[in-house]
Structures are given as structure tokens and as C-alpha cells.
């Protein structure tokens, strides 16, 4: 029997980490993910886990220590947000290129500047092409469930890549929701123990990690990294099936909500999906065929599946929780549109920048999106802003 509880997203994440019982956690506090290492430290200091907690002096060192620990043969985890992830950026690349299945809890927050501590996805999007598997979570339950599945995916021999579980800062990290937790024993059995093939602490087989890798080999190593990300697709699906068997909770690459027969579709990630679902229900009551495509697996990007799911729709809106600063679309928009293009699926698709720096995402705003989709005539400028004060 699962355990019914009421937890915030941060509590749920810390609780999952307690049940996973990693060998090393190295973390540095940053709003809004600070509570994760806080809760976790109390597990350490009260002897509820076997973990060595490394209270590093920065996020750069947090990721460096995780790399050291994971390369040494341990299971290492960390948590961060926004500038913390940016400060790790250099090491984020080194973690994935060293093929170390570190797991990171990312509580999404706007990156500076100017300083803002509230939710958007600029932090996650700044590392989107770094060779990490990225799972997004609409609710506390999903943040917990994704975390329980994380190690099975990351540590798979055909994958061996780091993984981050993203959730929305404050919106889910600090909001208390009903949640179904698994028993400790079930988690332990599901996650299993980490048995690396090669590791620094193996005296019988000393190894060198992080060599100088020049013209003769780097390209082949990057090709292998690419393959690992490709291999992750099947592993993510397999692990989700096992998870469903244990919990009854089904996880796919994305969730379609009233998507199949929808004519107008919004694509988004994380907590906004909850608001969109309400609006979709409302529109359906009024005879408008609205639907939602909520992406769970952002990396590896399930482009072909998404394109097929959007085929034949009248219009699509991709909601990017980032500002548009590149003279082209937001990252999610670019990925969705190019996935459709490569499959020769042509659907009018527009892009919204929304919810920046924790700007409230209201049902009125989402209604506006579906209204726009129903009246889409001019595609000369597909880039729009949602919830922006115009004066």
C-alpha cells in the first residue's frame, strides 16, 4: 500500500532522495531549491541515510564534487536553481562527457539579470544541449516519481548519462499537495544498487578520467555520447513501464490531454499544464476542440512522436517560459517546429513567451492563446508575449 501524504515539491524531492539513499550529496543553497539540501542534511545528521553530505562553498564545487564522487564509484546527487545551475555550467558539460550518471534536482527559476528568484525556465534552457537527460514535472507527484525513476535511466549501461528532474520554483517546490509515496523497501528494490564497471577507487584497476582528448578521438567520443542519448529513449520507456507496474501511474514522453481529436493545441512543460487542462475542459464544454501536449521528456527530445501527435491539427501554440532574446523562437518552439518540418508535417504554429520571472499564468491568458489559435490568419510574426503589461 502506498503512503498518502501532503508534501511540497521540495519535500517530495528530498524524501525521494532519502529513499534512494545516495552515497554522496554535494549541494549549495539557492532559492527556491534550498530546502532540498536542508531536509536532506537532517536525514544525514539523524542517521537516516548512509550519505556523505558535502556542504560545498559553491555550485561549481557541488557539481565538481558530484563528478569526483560518481567517478570514484559512488552514487552522487545534488539540487540547484537558476544562477546555481549557471555557475555549474562548465561542470555540467564535464559530467555528461565523462559519462557519469549524476542526478540533479532542478527547481526552475529565472536566471539573473536582473535578479529575480521566481519561476521561469531560463535555467533549464541554458543547459538544454549539454548532454543531460531532462525530465519535467507538472506536479509534486511527478517530481517525486521522476526522481524515483531517474537512476534506473541514468545508470543503464547503454546510457550512462547524467539526468535532471525539473519542477517549477515556488509553484510546485513550495506548494503543498496531496501525494502518494512509495514504501522505502519498494523504492530500494526499484532503484537497485549502483555497480559501475570502472571507477577511481578500484585499486585493482586504476583508471584515468578526463584526459586531454585531441583531434584523433574527440569526435568519436562525442558520437558515443550522442548514441547514449539516443539509447536513453528506450530505457526511459522501459523504466516507465516498470514504474507503472509498481504504482499504476503511467508516464510517457509526453502527456496528451484531450489531444487526439483536438483542433487547437497548446504545448508546454511543468506546472502551467495544470492551468491549461482547466482551460481545455472549459473550452470543450463550449464545443471548442482544445487540447494539450505536455512534454515530460525534454531531452532526449521526442520530436518524431510530438510531430505525429500534432499532425492534422488546425493550429498549435508552443508556450516557452523564457524571454525571446535570439531573434528567433524559444527553445521549445524551435524543437517542435523543426521536428514537424523534418517529418513534412505543416501546421501553423505560434510561439508565446510567458510567465517570466514568476509572472502569474492565469486561465484568462490561456484562453487568449486558444482564441488566437482559432483566429490565426497572419503568420508573418509567430512570436508573441502572454501576460505582458502593454503600458
Amino acid at each position, binding site marked *: 500500500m502506498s503512503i498518502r501524504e501532503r508534501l511540497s515539491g521540495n519535500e517530495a524531492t528530498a524524501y525521494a532522495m532519502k529513499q534512494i539513499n545516495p*552515497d*554522496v550529496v*554535494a549541494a549549495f543553497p539557492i532559492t527556491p531549491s534550498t530546502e532540498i539540501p536542508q531536509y536532506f542534511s537532517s536525514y544525514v545528521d539523524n542517521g537516516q541515510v*548512509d*550519505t*556523505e553530505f*558535502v*556542504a*560545498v*562553498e*559553491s555550485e*561549481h*564545487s*557541488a557539481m*565538481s*564534487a*558530484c*563528478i*569526483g*564522487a*560518481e*567517478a*570514484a*564509484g*559512488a552514487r*552522487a546527487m545534488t539540487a540547484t536553481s537558476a544562477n546555481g545551475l549557471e555557475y555549474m555550467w*562548465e*561542470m555540467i558539460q*564535464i559530467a555528461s562527457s*565523462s559519462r557519469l550518471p549524476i542526478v540533479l534536482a532542478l527547481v526552475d527559476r529565472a536566471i539573473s539579470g536582473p535578479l529575480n528568484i521566481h519561476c521561469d525556465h531560463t535555467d533549464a534552457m541554458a543547459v538544454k544541449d549539454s548532454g543531460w537527460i531532462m525530465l519535467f514535472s507538472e506536479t509534486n507527484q511527478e517530481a517525486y516519481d521522476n526522481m524515483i525513476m531517474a537512476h534506473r535511466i541514468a545508470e543503464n549501461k547503454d546510457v550512462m548519462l547524467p539526468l535532471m528532474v525539473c519542477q517549477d520554483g515556488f509553484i510546485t517546490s513550495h506548494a503543498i499537495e496531496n501525494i502518494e509515496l512509495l514504501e522505502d523497501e519498494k523504492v530500494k528494490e526499484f532503484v537497485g544498487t549502483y555497480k559501475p564497471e570502472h571507477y*577511481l*577507487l*578500484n*585499486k585493482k584497476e*586504476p*583508471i*584515468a*578520467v*578526463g*584526459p*586531454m*582528448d*585531441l583531434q584523433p*578521438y574527440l569526435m568519436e567520443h562525442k558520437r558515443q555520447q550522442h548514441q547514449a542519448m539516443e539509447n536513453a529513449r528506450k530505457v526511459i520507456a522501459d523504466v516507465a513501464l516498470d514504474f507503472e507496474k509498481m504504482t499504476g501511474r503511467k508516464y510517457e514522453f509526453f502527456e496528451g490531454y484531450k489531444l487526439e481529436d483536438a483542433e487547437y493545441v497548446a504545448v508546454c512543460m511543468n506546472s502551467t499544464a495544470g492551468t491549461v487542462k482547466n482551460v481545455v475542459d472549459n473550452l470543450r464544454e463550449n464545443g471548442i476542440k482544445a487540447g494539450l501536449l505536455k512534454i515530460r521528456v525534454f531531452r532526449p527530445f521526442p520530436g518524431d512522436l510530438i510531430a505525429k501527435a500534432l499532425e492534422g491539427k488546425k493550429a498549435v501554440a508552443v508556450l516557452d517560459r523564457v524571454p525571446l532574446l535570439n531573434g528567433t523562437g524559444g527553445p521549445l518552439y524551435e524543437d517542435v517546429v523543426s521536428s514537424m518540418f523534418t517529418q513534412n508535417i505543416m501546421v501553423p504554429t505560434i510561439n508565446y513567451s510567458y510567465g517570466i520571472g514568476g509572472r502569474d499564468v492565469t486561465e484568462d491568458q490561456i484562453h487568449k492563446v486558444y482564441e488566437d489559435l482559432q483566429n490565426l490568419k497572419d503568420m508573418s510574426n509567430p512570436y508573441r508575449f502572454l501576460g505582458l503589461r502593454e503600458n
Partner: protein
Amino acid sequence: MYNVKEVVANKPSRFTSGHRMCAGCGAPAVARMVLRAVNENDHVVVSNATGCMEVSTCIYPYTAWTDSYIHTAFESASATESGVEAAYKSLKKQGKLPENENTKFIVFGGDGGTYDIGIQSLSGAMERGHDMTYVCYDNGAYMNTGIQRSSATPRFADTTTSPAGSVIPGKMQPRKDLTEIMCAHHLPYVAQTAAVGNFKDLYEKAEKAINIKGGKFLNVLAPCPRGWGYATEDLMLINKLAVETCWWPLYEVENGVYHITYKPANKLPVEEFLKPQKRFKHLFKPGNEWMIEELQKETDLRWNELLAKEEMTNKNVNE
């Protein structure tokens, strides 16, 4: 009793030949001697900051290190090793590693990776008390990228970012005293050493550091023939002059108590150390005598400060 022949004959080098460091470079001798000081039965995980030593000893698919080795980035060697050491503690505690095996944790970084870009990571790891020995091979500039000034570069030295120009005659700031900064961390063991004579000072300090529990720091002078401008065969002479002039004093600080391990009977003027080096060539032009005087003053001030610290801390112990 230390015997160089016995050490070299009986303790095989854990840092092999075939690496690509320059002839006359001080750093490989430091790495080899420090690793020789490890108990032969112990395993070592070396963490190496980006720099000359890293780029010339571990070029895929080769390595000059017979122990386990990790390189992550320029500034992260200490933090990386703190993760390795935390993993060791955790796995050992859980019975996931053989009980009868010991692992030592040794970090190598140049002055760029230690004094400058890596000082935060080093300070953090040392404050947290990880059981590791940090070895800085100090060649007084960013040599790997082509001799740019660092905070370890001596005053007036000619480097590619502090060239001896017609208006500004080299680096204008005195060098940072990192050994003293590490002393201020109140570590169980901090030492400054160099590969002088028969390597006794270096070997004994390394051996001591490696066998003390906690965070230890060794600052080792590692001359660079390209950056300093001396003939490759003069490496040992340059080391000797640095020590004999008291420009690079040999000392150790054990639990706060200073011990100067070598006091020259006849302290040479600092110009003896400067003279054979091209980076100080402009100091010997007529009209530039003041620069040598300034460096002499700085050397004397620091040496006297060290003598006073030795006296003071030993007095505290004796009381």
C-alpha cells in the same frame, strides 16, 4: 634516515617517463617525488587541475599516472577530489570497499589553478577538512597558455601580460603569499618546499603530509625554463638559489607551530637568484637598481616575518 638512493631504488616511480613535459621543468620531479612518498601498498587517486602537468601527462589514450587519476577543469581540482574522498568515506562506511585497502588523495595544481582560479575550491575543500594533500607546483605564471602573469608572479617579472615595457617595467605587484593563506585555514599541516639537493626536504614533507589525516597543503617551487628563461640544465641551480637567498624559504607549520627547515648559514643577496633568469634581465640595466633593492627589501621583510612567527609559535608551545 632519508637516503635518496634507497628511496629511488626501492620505491618505483608511480609517475612514469614518456610524459611530454619540457626538459628542465621543475614540475615532473615534484610529482614523482611526492608520489614516491606514498606507502607502496596504498592506492592513490590523483586529481589534477588543468595546466601544463595535465595536458602533457594524460593525452588520450595514454597516461603517465599509474594510480587512478581525474582531471575535470582548471579551478575544480580540490572540489573534485573532495567528492572522491567523500565517496571513499561513504563506500568504506557501508562496507562497499575492501577493508584492508587504503587510498590516499593527492591534488596537483599549478599556481594558476591554485593561487588564482582555483583558490575558492581549494579553500572550501580545506575548510571542510577532507583528507587530502594539495600540492601546488608553483612556477609563478600561467605557463601552459604562454607565460601570463599570475598572483604568484614575483614583482617586476617580465611576462606576456606584464611585459617589461618602456613605461611599466614588468609586473608591478608583489606576489601573493599563498602558503600563509593556507596557514590561516589552521590545517594540521602546511609546508613550503622545493626540489633541492637530494630531495630530502620535499620527500620528507610530502611523506609527513600524506600520512597526517585531514587537509594538508604543500607549496612547491617548480621553476619553468621557458617562463623564467634559464638553461634547462640549470633547474637544480635555480631551486638552490631561490632557497639560499631566502626568496623561497623552506618551512613547515604543524598544527600552527612554525619550523623553518633550512636556514642558510650565509644568506645570499636576492640578485643571485634573479641574475640567471631572463624574466628579470631588465632589472640589471643601469637605472633599474631600485627594482633589485625593492625585491631585496621584500625578501628580507618576509624572511624576518617568518623568523618571528617561528619564534612566537614555538614560545607558545614551550609555555
